[in-house]
């Protein structure tokens, strides 16, 4: 197990380094400069380049850049007059985290509920209804859903605020738009797992012992069906992260995603690089945690799967 963790962490560091390098060199080849302003003279441009270290050889810039990342310094923004990228991320991540966590929790609870109901009422219209909801949730793009919600509930019915971030009511529509995908994924996954588990002999044994149906489903069924759910947490986190880019833009939520989109439009390279690295780091970390958790929660995997993975 220890060897497994070490090799996983090694992979994680290597992948992150690769992304950092990739990001750096891509940014070097980017067309356009943030100082492409006709009002600036050559001398002023030189001063600006010097100040941001843009006139040094690429190799030196690269080494400095990697060194700074290790120190947790992503440079300063071009647009916000020398503000550190880290402080921009720090200021904006809170809102995104609240939105993401809210969507994950709401989506998971609803999705699990739908999935369990569908499995228990297998091949009835409840099952079909739940699966239709799931297919819709998987298929309808989040920006379409966000747009429709904004128009119908925000503009036409005026039940909820259309945009900005000022309290719980403002977070409802973005949360619905973001969690649809989570609900759909969870519901489908949970239904399959639950059907699998309920077909097992130990469920028949539990029923034969005369335990109430509720207890059979919750204690024997649900607990075992929940284990593989962890594996889809990784993809879900990624979907939520990319979802926040779009949903925050549509609802003008002052989160990290909205900032990222803005930075792309204004060629603010340090912010783009910083946020990209930050997202990648989160992503890699989530995958690592998911893999390790899986082994911890289900000892069968640690014994069978863990060993196999080491040898793979």
């Amino acid at each position: 197990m220890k060897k497994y963790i070490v090799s996983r962490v090694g992979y994680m560091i290597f992948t992150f380094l690769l992304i950092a390098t990739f990001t750096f060199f891509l940014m070097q080849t980017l067309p356009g400069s943030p100082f492409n302003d006709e009002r600036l003279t050559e001398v002023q441009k030189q001063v600006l380049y010097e100040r941001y270290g843009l006139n040094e050889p690429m190799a030196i810039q690269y080494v400095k850049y990697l060194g700074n990342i290790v120190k947790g310094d992503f440079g300063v923004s071009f647009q916000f007059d020398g503000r550190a990228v880290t402080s921009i991320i720090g200021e904006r991540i809170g809102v995104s985290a609240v939105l993401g966590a809210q969507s994950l929790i709401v989506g998971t609870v609803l999705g699990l509920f739908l999935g369990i109901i569908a499995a228990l009422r297998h091949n009835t219209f409840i099952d079909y209804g739940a699966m239709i909801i799931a297919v819709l949730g998987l298929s309808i793009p989040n920006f379409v859903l966000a747009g429709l919600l904004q128009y119908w509930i925000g503009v036409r019915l005026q039940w909820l605020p259309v945009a900005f971030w000022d309290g719980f009511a403002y977070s409802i529509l973005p949360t619905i738009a973001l969690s649809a995908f989570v609900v759909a994924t969870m519901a489908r996954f949970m239904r399959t797992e639950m059907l699998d588990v309920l077909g097992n002999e130990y469920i028949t044994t539990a029923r034969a012992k005369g335990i109430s149906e509720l207890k059979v489903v919750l204690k024997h069924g649900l607990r075992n069906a929940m284990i593989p759910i962890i594996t889809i947490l990784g993809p879900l986190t990624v979907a939520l992260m990319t979802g926040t880019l779009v949903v925050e833009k549509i609802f003008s939520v002052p989160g990290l995603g909205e900032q990222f989109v803005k930075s792309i439009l204004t060629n603010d390279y340090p912010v783009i690089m910083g946020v990209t690295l930050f997202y990648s780091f989160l992503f890699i970390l989530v995958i690592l945690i998911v893999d390790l958790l899986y082994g911890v929660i289900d000892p069968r995997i640690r014994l069978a799967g863990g060993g196999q993975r080491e040898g793979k």
Partner: protein
Amino acid sequence: MKVNEAEFTDDLFEEAGQQFKEKKKSGRPSSSFWRDSWIRLRKNNGAFIGLILIIAMILLAIFGPMMNSYGFDDQDLTRANLPPKVPVLENIPFLGMNGVDIRGMDQYEAKGVTDYYWFGTDELGRDLWTRIWQGTRISLYIAFLAATLDLIIGVAYGSISAYYGGRVDNVMQRIIEVLMGVPNLIVVILLILVLKPGIVSITLAMVITGWVNMARIVRGQVLKLKGQEFVLASRTLGAKDQRLIWGHLIPNSLGPIIITTMFTIPTAIFTEAFLSFIGLGLQPPIASLGTIVNDGFKMLRIYPHMLLFSSVIISLIMISFNLLGDGLRDSFDPKMKK
């Protein structure tokens, strides 16, 4: 004991009769894997609806722009921001197809336009029907191109990795493992920033990380198949590696390959639309469904029809590909069906 061959004369043998050569007759026509799958697919209502919708969308994407006389980038400010108006349907008030906007004003009358614009027009007076189907064409084109490239690279990579095994497999799997850890969309975003948005660059950016999934699935299939007897038999008969891979292993993995492709297409359509949304989409005059949806947002409050039609169509495409993909998975492998 040595036997003289001359001792075996013909009269020592007698004919066995015809009964061994006769084919066993059965009342049913023989069936193949594909035939069985097709029968199962036809029984699956959702998948069949998906299939029909996809065919309809493809036909409309091809012929839709030709169905009226407006070009997809013909601008005419005298007919800007018109709501949809369709002959016959205009007489049914609640459909909203009568040229009356959300404030209850007949824009066609106000602007003195006598033509019909089935999906309305945008802020530059371009006909949305033509634009949307033209956009669908571009979106589908990008999706099919990306799926084909994913298919080629993924199948080649996966089958080589699994077939040769050993060190080759080891190295190739390490590469995949690193690529799996990289968030796809971030790589796509970064690449588009550099390459400038265009049909080719968007497709390439998606393929760079997109093929990994296909490669893993093909590898799994080939690993499972290559130890089976029919492969050994073929090898014993002298089949070369190439023939084994292309003649036996890949044809027997076609089911999972088709299913994976079916799910790649909606993902590619979504990714392309997502890119337009964060300002990295196709540049005018080319338009895709994504850019049209994005344009629709600008006028959402006053002219919702611009967003409505494009988003309904993109959602329909996604839904039908997902339905068909699910249906194919069930029909190729009925054991998987729940």
